[in-house]
C-alpha cells in the first residue's frame, strides 16, 4: 500500500515530465523485457525518455521483479538493494558432507554444526540459527530442508583437527552438494603432541647478493650458522610500491636440507627428499609480479632432526627484511604436531 502511494506521488511530481504514450509504451516494454529476458537492449533514444534497465547479466526473476519496481520508481534505490538482499534468504541450503581422516578413512561421530544465516539488512549482522548433527559410521552427514542465505558448516571431534586449507574442505564443482556428490572434509587424526623447539629470525639483510648466515638455534646471524640467505635485487635502488624489478633469493641449509611444504596439515615431515638449497627467481616481467616470498618448508638439520621453517623475505624494502619462524623436533621424530589449544 505504502509503496503504491509512493509510486503515485512520483508520477504526480513528474506531471510536467509525464511520459508520452510512446514513452509509456517504452516503459512497459522495458519492464516486460526485464521480466522475460533480463537483457535489455541499449537505448539510443534522446534524453527525457524514461529509464531503461541497463543490467545485461542474468539475474533471478524475483530480482528482476524488484529491479522492475525500482525502474518504475515504485521503490527507491536503497529499498531495491535491500529487497534484493532479502531474496537471497530464499535459497535452499541442503548440504551433504563426508568426514574422512588424512588416510581417507571415514570418521564416525563427528559433531557437525550447520550455521544457517539469514540476511537482515545491509548494515546489520545476520540472524543465525544453529543445527547440529553427527556423521554416521561411513562419515556421512547432511542438513536438508533448510532455506537461507548461507549455511556455514563446522566439524569437531576429540582427537582430530580441522584445517583452514581449501584442501581440507573440498566441495563439488559448482559448490552444490548432493547425496552422490558430497563435500569431502578431511580432518587430521592427531598422533599426539611433541615437544617442539621454536626460534625466530627477524633481520634486515642486504639485497646486493651478499649472503647472511644464521644460527637456527639462536636465531642470530653467525658465520658458523646453518641457514644461509642470499638476496640479489636489480637494480639496487628501488622505490617501494612503485618499481618492479628483478630479484632472486637463495635459501641454503648448509648442513641439512629443505623441502617446500604446501600441505593442509603440515605435521609430519617427509623422511627423505631434502635439497640443500631453494632458489626463487622473480623477473620484473613476471605476471603476477611479486615483491615477497612467503613459503613454508620442511627442514632437516645436521643432527638429523626434522622441523618446519616459515620463511618470509620482503625484497622491496631497503634494507630488505627477512622473517623466519623455525620449529624443530629435537627427538628426531618426523612428528611435528604441537600441543594444540583445546
Amino acid at each position: 500500500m505504502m509503496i503504491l502511494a509512493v509510486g503515485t506521488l512520483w508520477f504526480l511530481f513528474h506531471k510536467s515530465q509525464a511520459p508520452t504514450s510512446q514513452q509509456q509504451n517504452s516503459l512497459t516494454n522495458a519492464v516486460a523485457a526485464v521480466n522475460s529476458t533480463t537483457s535489455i537492449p541499449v537505448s539510443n533514444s534522446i534524453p527525457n525518455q524514461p529509464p531503461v534497465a541497463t543490467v545485461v547479466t542474468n539475474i533471478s526473476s524475483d530480482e528482476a521483479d524488484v529491479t522492475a519496481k525500482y525502474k518504475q520508481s515504485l521503490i527507491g534505490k536503497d529499498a531495491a538493494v535491500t529487497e534484493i538482499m532479502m531474496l537471497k534468504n530464499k535459497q535452499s541450503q541442503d548440504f551433504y558432507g563426508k568426514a574422512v581422516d588424512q588416510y581417507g578413512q571415514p570418521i564416525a561421530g563427528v559433531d557437525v554444526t550447520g550455521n544457517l544465516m539469514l540476511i537482515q539488512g545491509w548494515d546489520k549482522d545476520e540472524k543465525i540459527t544453529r543445527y547440529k548433527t553427527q556423521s554416521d559410521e561411513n562419515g556421512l552427514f547432511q542438513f536438508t530442508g533448510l532455506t537461507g542465505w548461507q549455511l556455514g558448516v563446522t566439524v569437531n571431534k576429540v582427537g582430530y583437527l580441522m584445517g583452514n586449507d581449501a584442501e581440507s574442505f573440498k566441495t563439488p564443482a559448482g559448490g552444490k552438494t548432493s547425496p552422490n556428490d558430497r563435500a569431502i572434509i578431511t580432518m587430521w587424526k592427531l598422533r599426539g603432541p611433541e615437544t617442539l623447539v621454536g626460534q625466530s629470525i627477524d633481520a634486515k639483510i642486504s639485497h646486493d647478493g651478499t649472503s647472511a648466515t644464521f644460527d637456527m638455534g639462536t636465531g642470530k646471524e653467525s658465520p658458523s650458522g646453518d641457514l644461509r640467505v642470499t638476496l640479489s635485487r636489480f637494480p639496487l635502488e628501488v622505490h617501494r610500491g612503485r618499481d618492479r624489478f628483478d630479484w632472486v633469493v637463495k635459501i641454503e641449509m648448509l648442513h641439512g636440507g629443505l623441502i617446500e611444504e604446501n600441505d593442509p596439515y603440515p605435521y609430519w615431515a617427509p623422511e627423505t627428499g631434502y635439497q640443500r638449497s631453494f632458489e626463487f627467481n622473480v623477473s620484473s616481467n613476471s605476471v603476477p609480479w611479486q615483491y615477497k616470498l612467503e613459503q613454508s618448508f620442511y627442514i632437516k638439520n645436521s643432527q638429523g632432526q626434522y622441523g618446519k621453517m616459515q620463511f618470509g623475505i620482503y625484497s622491496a624494502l631497503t634494507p630488505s627484511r627477512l622473517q623466519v619462524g623455525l620449529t624443530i623436533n629435537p627427538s628426531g621424530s618426523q612428528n611435528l604436531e604441537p600441543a594444540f589449544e583445546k
Partner: protein
Amino acid sequence: MLTDFMKSIVRNFWGLAIVAGFMTLANFARADYFTFWANNNFDRSVYSSDDGTNIDDSLNPIEIAHLPTYQQIPDCDYVNASGQRVIPSKRDLQDFTRLWLAGVNELVHALPTNSTITLSWTSVNGEPTIDLFAAIDPGTGYLTNETVAAAQIDPVQCPYLGRISPTQTVQFTKATWRTNQFIWCGVKYGNGGLTMTIADGNGNTLATTTAWIQIVDIKQMYERWTVGDTPSRAPYTNAVIASDGILGPNAPFQFTPPQDTNTPYILFVHGWNMRTDDKNNFSETAFKRLYWQGYQGRFGCFRWPTGNGFDSKINALTDSRNYDNSESNAWASGVGLLNKLKDLNSQYPGHVYLLAHSMGNVVAGEALRLANSQVANTYIAMQGAVPAHCYDNSTVNRSTYSTPDRYAHYWTNSSPSYFSASAGAGAYVNFYNTNDYALGWWNVDQGQKPDNGVLGFGINYPGYFYSSSSGFYKIAGTTYYLGFPTNTYEIFSYCDPSWSYALGAQAGVNGAFNNQQINLPSVWLTDPLTTDPNNKFSKHFWHSAEFRSDYPSQVNFWRTILGVDGFNLK
C-alpha cells in the same frame, strides 16, 4: 626490627615499574608522565539473540539506551547485576595497562608482621583515579590471547582490588598480598605520583617509590580532523579540528609540532554509515590497537559527511539514496583530505601514513589522485568500497553494462583508468577479502545505477539516466546533461555502475597497488561459523572486524598493518 639483610633488600628495591605495551617504564620522571586514556566508553559483550552468541562491541548512545539501567554507566564504573565491580568484556581489556610492583614478591615474606603495602596518589592535579585488578599473569596475554583474556575478566581468578584516587588508597598486608602483577584502567582525569609505600606495623616507612602517571580522555591523545559531519551539507575543502565529545574545560586536541622529523603520523579515514560517535569509536579503536602493537607515533582521524542510520528496511524506504549520497560526499571530500595530507606532510615529511576503511577509500583514492606529488608514505586500503577498475582496468569484469566503464577508462574508451596517475602515496597496499559481505552488496548497488527518480515521504530525488547518444543525464524538473570532468563525482555516485568488483574484494590489483596486497583471510585464519574456504569471512561482521570484537581476535590484523607488508613501522 629489620635485619641488615632485609634493609639491604629494601634499599635495593627495584621500585615501582609501570609496564605499558612492551615497554617497562621504571621510575618515570615527573616531567614525563606516563599518559594513558580513561576507560570511559562502553565496551560490552552483548548477547545477540540473532546468532545466539555474545559479541563484543563498543556501543553508541542508541545501543547504550537498550542496556539495563544499571549497565548504562561507562566501563570504568561497570558493576555486574550483583553490584560487583567487574571488567565487562574481553574488548574492554584494551583499556587496561599493566602495573608491576617489581621486587615486592621477593620482599614481602621478609617484612615484619603487620607491615603494609599501600598505593596512593601524591602531588596530584585534577582527580587522577584508577581501578586496580589482579592480573592473570605477568605478560600481555590478556591483550593477545583469547583464553588468557577470558580468565582475566573472571572476577574469581582476577578480582577487583580497589580504587586509587586522591582520597582512596589500596592497601595490602602480608596476608592479603597475592602477587605483584596488576592491571588497571583510568577512571577520572588528572595526574600525579602513584606512590607505593611499604610501612611496618607502627607506620614507619620502610620504602617508597613513585611513578608519574596522567589519565586523560582519549580525545586528548589523537587529532580529529573533519570536513563536516552533516550528510546534507557539502564537505569543506579544509578540515577543521572537531570539538564534539570534549569533556570539561579541555580544548579540542592538537599535537604540538614534532620535535623529531622522523615521527610517523597515521591518518585514518572511516567508511559509510557512521554517526559521529561511531566515527570516534572506530578511530579510537584503531588508535588503541595500534598503541598495543607498540606504535609510538602520532595518530589522527579524518572525518567526512557520510550518511548514517541505514540499518533496516524502513530506513531504506525512507532514505532512498543513503549509500549513493554518501558516495557523492566521499568523492567531494577528497580535496579536503588532500589539503590535510599536504599539511601533515609538511610537518611530518615523508612519514604520513594513510589508512582508509570501506567507502573511506573513495575519499583516500580521490585525494591521492588529486595530489601532484607524494603526500603519504604508504596508503593502506582496508576493505575498499571503490571500483578496482579505478586502479587497474585489467581486473576481471564482474558484470558488463550498457553504460561505459568510466572507472576503467576515464573518460574516453581508450583512456587509462581513473586513478592511473595516482601519485599521492609512495606505496599502496590492498587489504582485501573476496567474500566481504558489504562489498558483495556494493555490487548490487552498482548494478542498480543509474539511480532512478523517486518521490516519497517529502523527499524527492532526480532520476539519472544514460543513453549512448547523449551520455549521462538527469531529470529534475528539467533535463541536465552530465559530462566529464565537470560532473565526474555525480556520474560516479549516481549513474555509472562499476563493471569490476570493489577494490577490497579483488585480488591482484596492479596500477598504483602494484600487486601489493594482503588477503585478509590469511590474517584472520579462523572463522568460527564455517570451515568452508568458499564461505569463510562472508558474514557482515568481517567487513569491519578490525574495529569490532575484542583485541585478541584482531591482534594479527593490526600487527599486519604495522608490519613489513603494511606501513613497515615495526
